């Protein structure tokens, strides 16, 4: 009982403390970072990553050690967070005006907030297409961080979502890789008969459902409508394709997962382990996870691991060649006194050699640097996945980062409600429209 009392008080105090920090002044009037200046190799450089935990944690640590070995007067402070914890950490640091010199970002609305708030340095002069550094990346990756014709982000790796599957399970069930959404659903019964959970799925954190939804939206909703709906000012969220997509998702959950309506009580990592442990036949995952699935200790070997794009429904009104995914990268703090050094360090991080290391096992993060992901450097699945990403007609970003937070939150709750069966697709859409109205 005593422990309980402190936490909300701390939470309330945190909000108040953030209020204090927020009231103490905005970013206006802050000197613009000179990212083109010749760096002075001295002082402390802080970096916020989302690489906490093995095997990724050592990547930036090794780079920081190598960089400081070359420049002994530079100290690099690493703040490594996980995919989940970095969201809170970044917002807390933002509110208290304590953002590090370099910090992780997703694309879409997430990055746009920092750009429009004047917290991200304009890197156009050093990273825009046509510049030496800019041309070392795929143009689409650099352009993913373009706002109003200016380039703000340093893309570290590309990413996309695919269905990973156990080839042995498919052989046991006597089925082929499905090419349509209906075929995917039809494959679930024989897989279950063969002793596998057809699709492992854990939605405790809410966002895994959004990954299914966003890919199905891209298939079912015309691209121009979908893009317009990401912006609260132009959004309507009333295309009939949304209802189709939500119904398809419900069918998949009910027909192909063992937990069905209880999936909200399962961790994402539990589902991941079900495929890696050979208990499940399929699991919808990001390219970033491929090497983890077949890492040492997994029952699933690299040879038994295959991937395919979530099949599109027949005759859907959207784009069947679209893939859900986006590059992820880093922003340089617009008010950093070490902006030039920050750029220099990130050039070091993205040089061809370090880009190849990032793309190789055990990291398996497909670098956005051209030529870093090859059949020789990366695992077969990572190479295949990133090739498909590069060949996609378009990339559609994660639903909870391309929409504003209120709308994203409504989709999170809506996805959970669909799974537990407490809301119909129409009711979910209604709550999203209400959230959009609030956000306008």
């Amino acid at each position, binding site marked *: *009982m005593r422990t309980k009392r402190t936490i*909300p008080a701390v939470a*309330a105090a945190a*909000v108040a403390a953030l209020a204090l920090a*927020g009231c103490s002044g905005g970013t206006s009037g802050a000197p613009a970072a000179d990212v083109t200046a010749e760096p002075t190799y001295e002082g402390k450089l802080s970096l916020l990553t989302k690489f906490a935990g093995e095997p990724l944690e050592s990547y930036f640590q090794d780079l920081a050690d190598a960089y400081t070995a070359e420049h002994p007067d530079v100290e690099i402070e690493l703040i490594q967070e996980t995919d989940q914890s970095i969201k809170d950490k970044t917002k807390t640091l933002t509110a208290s005006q304590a953002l590090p010199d370099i910090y992780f970002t997703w694309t879409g609305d997430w990055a746009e907030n920092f750009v*429009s708030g004047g917290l991200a340095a304009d890197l156009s002069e050093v990273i825009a297409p046509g510049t030496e550094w800019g041309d070392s990346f795929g143009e689409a990756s650099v352009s993913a961080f373009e706002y109003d014709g200016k380039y703000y982000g340093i893309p570290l790796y590309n990413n996309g979502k695919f269905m990973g599957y156990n080839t042995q399970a498919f052989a046991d069930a006597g089925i082929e890789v499905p090419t349509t959404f209906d075929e995917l659903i039809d494959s679930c019964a024989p897989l279950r008969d063969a002793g596998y959970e057809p699709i492992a799925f854990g939605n405790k954190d809410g966002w895994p459902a959004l990954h299914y939804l966003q890919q199905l939206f891209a298939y079912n909703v015309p691209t121009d409508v979908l893009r317009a709906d990401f912006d609260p000012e132009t959004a309507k969220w009333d295309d009939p394709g949304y209802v189709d997509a939500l119904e398809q998702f419900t069918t998949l959950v009910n027909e192909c997962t063992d*937990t069905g*309506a209880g999936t909200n*009580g399962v961790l994402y990592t539990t589902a991941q382990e079900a495929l890696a442990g050979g208990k499940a036949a399929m699991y919808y995952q990001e390219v970033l996870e491929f090497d983890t699935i077949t890492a040492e200790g997994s029952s699933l070997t690299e040879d038994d691991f295959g991937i395919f794009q979530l099949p599109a429904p027949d005759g859907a009104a959207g784009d069947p060649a679209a893939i859900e995914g986006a590059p992820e990268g880093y922003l340089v703090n617009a008010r950093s006194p070490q902006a030039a050094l920050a750029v220099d360090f990130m050039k070091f991080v993205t040089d061809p050699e370090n880009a190849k290391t990032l793309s190789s096992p055990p990291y398996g993060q497909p670098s956005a640097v051209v030529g870093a992901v090859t059949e020789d450097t990366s695992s077969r699945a990572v190479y295949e996945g990133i090739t498909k990403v590069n060949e996609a007609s378009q990339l559609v970003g994660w639903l909870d980062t391309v929409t504003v937070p209120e709308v994203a939150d409504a989709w999170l709750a809506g996805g959970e409600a669909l799974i537990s069966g407490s809301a119909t697709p129409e009711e979910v859409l209604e709550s999203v429209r209400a959230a959009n109205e609030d956000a306008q």
Partner: protein
Amino acid sequence: MSGQPTKTRSDARSGAGFDRPPTLTKAMVAPGGGRVDRHARSRFARLAGLAWVLPAVVVLLVFVYLPLVQNFAFSTQEWDIYSGATEFVGLENYEKLLDDPVFWTALGNNVLYAVLSIVFQVAAALVLAALIESLRGPRWRKVLRGIYFVPSAISLTVAGLLFYFIYEPNLGLLNNFLEAIGLGALAQPWLGQESTAMVSIIAMSQWQGFGYSTLLFAVAIQRIPTELYEAASLDGIGAVRRFLHITVPLVREMTGLMIIVTISGAFQVFNEVMVMTSGGPNNSTQVLATWLYRSGFVRNDFGYAAAIATVIFVVTMIIALVQLWYTRRRRVEF
């Protein structure tokens, strides 16, 4: 009287100036007699006392009261954390609270939490404490107290994680246990569905807090003179009536305190919900503190979060005032 300082009552007890430093004694000597002296000493004592408590007062002001005031001020604003821009919106955030269905769900969950906590951590804990204390062997009493108290020694976060895995639909201990004893039909995705998630979290919380309450009641029962029970036994009064007519009335003070503390705790629940469901599925397990967190840190609506914080503050402050009032007035003497 004139010309000589008069001894104060305390001086009279300890010897004039005996326990005072010479400079103080000098300062006490004032023309005009003892009244001035007493005032001077009293003023000095007040100033000295203030000097001692000043650091604590400053810390309290800066880290407790100022944030509280700032929090209220902030609840009347909209704040963009990215640009730092703030806009005064008056009581708009409070009006928004009234129209927010999730806020009402959260409030309802806090109330449910409070009600069930009173049932288990007050009523049931009192019965259990009485049963334990009625045991004849002191060794068994000690063993049982220890067994029931152990969960309280585990942090809420750890307990939450533990129960998350107990409730897990596929691998969890609870469903597997139900299946093992032939009650597989009762197996549920306990945290994965709206109908059972909140009650499952509350159940964990009761398991965690039950032993602590029991121990407190046991201490209260130990204070009751045994003669009362012996007299009742001689009169042929049964155990249930002894409990109802002796134990319950004489632990009234502790019961009142426990009710207030339990309700207060129920309105500040945070850890276990965050660990087990993060407020889901579909916001069904949101409580005020988690909705505060989600509004601020997920939805970027920090002004609204501050308004929720104010509501929690007001509710818990009222409970705290009731607690103060109750503990001053309700003294059971025997």
